[in-house]
């Protein structure tokens, strides 16, 4: 397991929208951290930096003991697994099995090892039967699980997930919590699903307008009504973090 | 426009296949490393887009509709090499997955629809852009003309192939007149849709229009593109007038150019109640979206009719040879 350190990260898109304004945070190896914030806060943009898909004008990103740069790009991509917000972007091969094999193949594993990884990754998400199916024939929840399998097959040490619970039914959501909690990996999870974050991540960051505005224990953050209201985060009706026991 | 097997003889089909393969190989070589890396997913998505847009039937005039070929559009958006590759993939997959276009005619179909249209469309577009002032509206007008010309060029290519290797029976002049005539009209529809599509893309993401890469970028993206609207109104008016006067009398739901030719020439020569006026003429021909019971019936009748008529013709021929 590896840690992550982001220092003074600032970024604007080519059309000059300033999205990240000096982001600083650090995650220890093995931590599970939630990243909360309103729509358009810059969450996805931040994640895209973590394996060099976007390159910031300012700031540094340290993954494990590597500082992100062109020379170490492929190594960093191997360590950081990325689950995209829309599974249709992530699943692009003709069959589920080929899609899950895409990462391991690129990282140069032999056929036998690739097959083994595909099998165990699909088993981990409980969807071994889907291997020969075409991704566009899957349901939303199945797509989501297969998308997660595509990064499990690369054995990434740091997993970055963008809204992993969207489209999952309640049971699927529960299975996802269990799966993610059992992985030997550092996790950074973006989600609007506050109960999910509370359950999975002991610690959370809140980002708004490209700045980290809060960083602390998830339960404490969710109990701070004023803070939540200020950043358009609302607890669902009937959900009270104070009444929930720790995992 | 998807030619089936048997329209053009083997030698000409093979010749076209060689030319088409050469064209595709050249495009592949020209697109080179860049395609391999960055643009494969983009090309694939654009191919899906062209495929989807080809299913778009647009109204041409009272009761008549045409559908987009998309070759010129792909070339203007992606450049001629990548555009040609994208449409090639579309045409080949249509033949293999949808039985749309004959396998022996694949070379012809790729040549006519995936190589002639992007190349002609691109050349006309670039030439016009050189002549016209460097403005967004010029790009829109050029797209319209380029797309219309590309469709006519494609029809002309068909006529040339027919004259080289057609199975005879109809004079080349008749075919030329009908094909080019009808496709000039279809080209107008193609031109309008292409121009509006390019206009929309130029207004939102001008950087995606390869053919207009040297235009000064529009900085204020929120401003409504008045130029586009003006062009549309003027172009549409001219097109509508032409269409209404030329085509309106032949109100038909036949969506495809080749078939349209058949109907038009048929109307002019044969008696008014020729055998095609029947229920099959209204069949929803786009092929892909027809699943219902009526299709079952039409399909069965069509195949039965094919063989019945074949048999009748065969008997007739035999009898004539005997005498």
């Amino acid at each position, binding site marked *: 397991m590896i840690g992550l350190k982001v220092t003074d990260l600032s970024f604007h898109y080519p059309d000059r929208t300033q999205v990240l304004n000096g982001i600083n945070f650090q995650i220890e190896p093995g931590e599970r951290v939630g990243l909360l914030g309103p729509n358009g806060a810059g969450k996805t943009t931040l994640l895209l930096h973590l394996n060099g898909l976007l390159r910031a004008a300012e700031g540094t990103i340290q993954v494990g003991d590597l500082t992100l740069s062109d020379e170490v790009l492929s190594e960093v*991509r191997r360590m*950081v697994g990325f689950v*995209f917000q829309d599974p249709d972007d992530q699943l*692009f091969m*003709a069959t589920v099995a*080929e899609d899950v094999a895409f*990462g391991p193949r*690129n990282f140069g594993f032999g056929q036998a090892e690739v097959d083994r990884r595909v099998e165990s990754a699909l088993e981990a998400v409980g969807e071994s039967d889907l291997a020969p199916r*075409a991704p*566009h024939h899957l349901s939303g929840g199945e797509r989501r699980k297969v998308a997660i399998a595509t990064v499990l097959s690369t054995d990434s040490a740091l997993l970055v997930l963008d809204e992993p619970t969207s489209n999952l039914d309640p049971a699927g959501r529960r299975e996802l919590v269990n799966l993610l909690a059992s992985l030997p990996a550092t996790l950074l999870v973006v989600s609007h699903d506050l109960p999910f974050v509370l359950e999975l991540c002991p610690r959370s960051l809140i980002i708004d307008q490209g700045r980290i505005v809060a960083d602390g224990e998830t339960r404490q953050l969710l109990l701070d009504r004023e803070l939540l209201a200020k950043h358009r985060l609302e607890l669902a009706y009937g959900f009270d973090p104070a009444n929930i026991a720790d995992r | 426009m998807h030619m*089936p*097997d*048997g329209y053009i003889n083997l030698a000409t089909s093979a010749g076209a296949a060689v030319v088409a393969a050469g064209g595709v190989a050249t495009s*592949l070589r020209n697109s080179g490393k860049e395609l*391999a890396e960055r643009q494969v997913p983009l*090309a*694939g*998505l*654009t*191919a899906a*887009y062209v495929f989807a*847009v080809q*299913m778009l039937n647009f109204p041409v*005039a009272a009761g008549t509709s045409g559908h987009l070929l998309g070759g010129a559009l792909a070339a203007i958006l992606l450049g001629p090499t990548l555009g040609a590759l*994208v449409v090639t*993939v*579309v045409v*080949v997959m249509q033949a*293999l997955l949808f*039985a749309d276009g*004959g396998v*022996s005619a694949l070379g012809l179909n790729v040549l006519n629809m995936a190589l002639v249209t992007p190349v002609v469309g691109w050349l006309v577009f670039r030439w016009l852009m050189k002549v016209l002032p460097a403005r967004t509206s010029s790009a829109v007008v050029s797209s319209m003309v380029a797309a219309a010309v590309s469709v006519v060029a494609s029809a002309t290519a068909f006529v040339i192939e027919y004259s080289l290797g057609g*199975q*005879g*029976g*109809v*004079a080349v002049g008749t075919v030329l007149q009908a094909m080019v005539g009808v496709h000039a009209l279809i080209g107008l529809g193609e031109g309008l849709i292409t121009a*509006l599509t390019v206009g*929309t893309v130029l207004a939102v*993401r001008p950087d*995606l229009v390869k053919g207009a890469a040297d235009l000064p970028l529009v900085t204020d993206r929120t401003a409504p593109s008045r130029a586009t609207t003006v062009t*549309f109104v003027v172009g549409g008016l001219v*097109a509508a007038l032409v269409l209404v006067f030329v085509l309106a009398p032949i109100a038909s739901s036949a969506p*495809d150019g*080749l*078939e349209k*030719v*058949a*109907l038009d020439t*048929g109307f002019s020569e044969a008696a008014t109640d020729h*055998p*095609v006026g029947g229920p099959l003429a209204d069949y929803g021909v786009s092929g*892909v*979206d027809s699943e219902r019971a009526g299709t*079952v019936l*039409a*399909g069965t009748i069509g195949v039965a*009719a094919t*063989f019945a008529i074949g048999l009748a013709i*065969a008997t007739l021929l035999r009898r004539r040879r005997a005498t």
Partner: protein
Amino acid sequence: MSGSHAHALHYHGHSPVHHLPAETKLVGLLVFVLSVVSTPPTAIWAFCGYALILMIALGLSEVPARFFITRMAIDLPFVLFALLIPFVGVEPKIAIGPFAISEPGLLSAWNILVKATLGAGASVMLAATTEVPDLLRGLQRLKVPVVLVAIASFMIRYLDVVAGEFRRTRVAMAARGHNPRTVFDAKPLAVASGALFIRSYERGERVHQAMLARGYDGTWPSSGNERIAAKTWIVGLTPALFAVIVAIAARLL
């Protein structure tokens, strides 16, 4: 547009024809169709032979005849076209009832009808018995440039997504009273088509990111290139072989 037209012609099954490797079917289809096209239209018995070969293959494939025939409907516009040729054809003409029928036109019509129908039938057989991923692998093994196969693969993968977006746009337009009738009404459609291109393109960019995130370095990973046993080739090409025999016989007799 049906829900998943990427498989519009596919008939799920486990027949021996379904299990043949796609490349044998592709080569077989090409050889069969070339045989048909090379046959002179007057060799009527030869076409019966081809039809018989096709029917036997259909029987072996367990694809229902009804399914097969309806999928051949794509042939229809050309049936219509062919039917008209005798009426517009060149001299000499024969009189049948009130019509003057062109004799070469008649021959040409028959030629197109029978060849287009047999060709479409053979193509439908391939499409009905081959899964898309197998088809793509088959093309790759037949040495079709890997870039083209990759583009085709992306196209098929995203066809439903893109067509779905387009369909939703059109439904949304119809729901708000858009009913295209004249050429002016096409404008919203074209604007939708422009917007659709941008969305498709941007999705292409995101997909590219997703590929990079999993270590894509510009070389498309080629899946196993295992070779096919000669015996499988022979079995797969048997119908095509018979077609070649028929074609040669039709030339010689």
